[in-house]
């Protein structure tokens, strides 16, 4: 494998890994803040117990999310120095803002929240978890703004003497349509992820009969957050698809392996064969008009085929292959969508149980399913990122720089291989420890809460 392949593999691996933790952090910070707010208002001890129970899961998760985030920031300079040198003028600004506006907020207030239970007034302490949730959501905003610039570069001019992009309108970068839709999509997916985790953990506890009254509350909260979030996530995702189809036609055409231009265009449930060398896969169960709807928002919309985009890109950018990996695009799209539909099914079932006032604790089959459903949002998120990032290839910045031109000239293939192996081993070990700890704490019996008459007692800090 070349330096380029290894560097791409490393970035993909570390990003996917990092993003297993990010949505849980964003979503669970918000859900924990909701639980603590419920405790603050009602003084009911079960909400305090839940706050601390899910807060502990949040902390185990944040630890890995934070440290793997460091790798993300360093990697731009380490493996992609030509990219960094070329676009740092534009791309660096949102990253620096992310640190100043979001990371400081999130990490400082997380420390206050964890260790401040017995040191801060209750109201102030409640505010700290909301600050953590705000910081987490804000950090996603800036990194999404930076990423969206790679998908659809705006707000810059090319400096004539250096030939490099230069920021000339930060507002354009922060109102990039790819960013606005993409950011909301990520926030909703994060809520979905954390809500499914909370639902799954509560379901596991309910099946074991541990503190059923308490975990019924958290299951209910998870379902109430999950249902609108998954519906909206799918709606916003399809709008994002329309936006991307406009700026990155390859990405969407490849997601249906649509080589020829079509109108109206159908969407197949699955295909046999396919890929960049097999332009005539057997498509099974084609749903008429669905691709037109997804890509253009209209019933009879036209989707430009890969062949046609390829020839227009050749005219615009010179000879080369501009088609992303069609196999990855096709299946990433479907894994994402099917996982989302699966989550929607679980949510609908759960809401139905709540609606009919059925005893959630007695719905064995639902509880069993809800535990296994925890895997779905992670599949969905990973596939979603593959769809958007692999679909950007061969560009590192759409239309501005090719990925192969972004690597570090001074770094040898051996160095990248060494670091790839190092991170694989380290991340593998971390994954084992994290999963073991998460399972252990998720299955732990709920710590006893304060007696009801003791509502004003000081709650001890969560120390190391």
């Amino acid at each position: 494998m070349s330096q380029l392949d290894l560097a791409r593999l490393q970035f993909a691996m570390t990003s996917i890994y990092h993003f297993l933790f990010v949505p849980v952090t964003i979503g669970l910070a918000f859900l924990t803040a909701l639980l603590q707010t419920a405790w603050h208002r009602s003084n009911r001890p079960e909400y305090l117990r839940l706050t601390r129970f899910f807060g502990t899961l949040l902390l185990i998760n944040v630890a890995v999310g934070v440290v793997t985030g460091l790798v993300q920031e360093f990697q731009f300079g380490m493996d992609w120095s030509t990219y960094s040198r070329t676009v740092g003028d534009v791309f660096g600004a949102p990253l620096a803002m992310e640190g100043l506006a979001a990371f400081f907020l999130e990490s400082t207030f997380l420390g206050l929240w964890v260790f401040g239970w017995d040191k801060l007034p209750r109201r102030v302490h409640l505010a700290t978890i909301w600050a953590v949730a705000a910081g987490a959501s804000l950090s996603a905003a800036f990194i999404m703004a930076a990423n969206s610039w790679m998908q659809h570069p705006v707000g810059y001019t090319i400096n004539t003497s250096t030939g490099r992009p230069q920021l000339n309108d930060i507002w354009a970068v922060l109102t990039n349509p790819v960013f606005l839709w993409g950011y909301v999509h990520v926030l909703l997916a994060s809520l979905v992820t954390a809500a499914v985790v909370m639902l799954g953990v509560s379901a596991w506890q309910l099946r074991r009969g541990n503190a059923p009254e308490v975990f019924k509350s958290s299951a209910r909260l998870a379902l109430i957050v999950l249902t609108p979030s998954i519906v909206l996530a799918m709606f916003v995702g399809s709008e994002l698809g329309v936006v991307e189809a406009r700026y990155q036609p390859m990405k969407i055409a490849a997601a249906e392996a649509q080589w020829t231009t079509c109108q109206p265009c159908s969407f197949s449930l699955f295909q046999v064969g396919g890929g960049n060398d097999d332009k005539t896969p057997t498509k099974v169960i084609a749903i008429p008009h669905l691709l037109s709807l997804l890509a253009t928002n209209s019933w009879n919309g036209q989707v430009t085929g890969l062949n046609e985009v390829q020839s227009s890109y050749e005219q615009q950018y010179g000879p080369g292959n501009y088609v992303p990996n069609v196999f990855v695009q096709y299946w990433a799209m479907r894994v994402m969508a099917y996982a989302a539909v699966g989550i929607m099914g679980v949510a609908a079932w759960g809401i139905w149980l709540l609606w009919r006032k059925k005893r959630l604790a007695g719905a064995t089959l639902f509880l069993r399913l809800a535990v296994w459903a925890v895997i779905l949002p992670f599949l969905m998120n990973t596939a979603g990122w593959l769809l958007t990032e692999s679909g950007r290839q061969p560009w590192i910045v759409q239309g501005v720089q090719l990925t192969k031109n972004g690597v570090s000239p001074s770094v040898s293939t051996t160095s990248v291989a060494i670091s790839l192996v190092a991170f694989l081993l380290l991340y593998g070990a971390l994954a084992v420890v994290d999963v073991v700890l998460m399972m252990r704490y998720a299955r732990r019996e709920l710590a006893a809460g304060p007696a009801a008459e003791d509502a004003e007692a000081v709650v001890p800090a969560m120390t190391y």
Partner: protein
Amino acid sequence: MTLVSTWFILIAVLWTGFFILEGFDLGVGMLHGVVGGDEAGRRAAINTIGPLWDGNEVWLVVAGAGMFAAFPGWYATMFSGLYLALVVLLAALIVRGVSFEFRGKVDGQRWRQTWDWLLTGGSLFVPLLLGVGLGDLLAGLPIDSSQEYTGSFLDLLTPYGLFVGVTFVLLCLMHGGTFLALKTTDHVRTRSLHLTRRIAPVTCVAVLVFAVWTQVTAGRGVLPNLLEVTAVLAVVAGAWLLAEGREGWAFAASTVAIAASVSSIFTELYPRVMVSSTSSAFDLTVHNTASGTYALKVMTVVAVILLPVVLAYQAWTYHVFRARVRPEDFAPAVPAAAEPS
């Protein structure tokens, strides 16, 4: 003052802030096993920085991102040039970061010992590698006319860089040990004071050599400038104050010593950001690595608005957690039956 100079100063401030703040929690990480004495003592030591270390580490993240945004050429050359060293640095930061959280999550002696070692080792490698890295900026690395690093991993091990690494480790030890003396009670405090008093003279010698060597490396003669003199005076004052048992003032002194040492590297660099050992014509400077005026203006506005806010709430955090941490609070729980009802 020009925008690029402003941003050079800001980057220097971010690195200096990082070493002042993370400096003591790195020291605590290295020392917690030795000064803790027992499990309660070790937990007390770790919990002195529990609420603080994560926010401190963000200073490094922001310093890196600030370099990326304001001086993309500097960021690109430095991070790709130091490649393998940064892999080790990241590994150290990773194991250190998770060890805080994971250490207490399973009740087992071997589990805790493993994380204690990882915390100690990680906390040692971070200042060592960053010291070598920052020292290399001034010592000079093989860099060609297109601003690319042309050396190998071994070329990173410049004698001056290595010495800066050792000096930073010693400074962090002294800073962290003083912090522990200031923030703990009982045996942890006594042991911290005792040990730090022994480390301090070694640190004094190292900082003195560092001050002279920095001058020589920068090609400005042997006599240190104001910042380097400050560093030496502060570290000596710190050692003396420790001996007197006045750990509060000693901590102020070690803060000044770290701040002056780190910022002296940057002042000696300016207007260069990376010295090329190949030819001074290839030196990276604030001018040939900086972003455009518009980007720097935007970033200046953001920094001017946000940095004071960040400083305010971080200062508030230090105020909230100003009390000393007592080892007896972490003593094994008394059996429930024995507890007064």
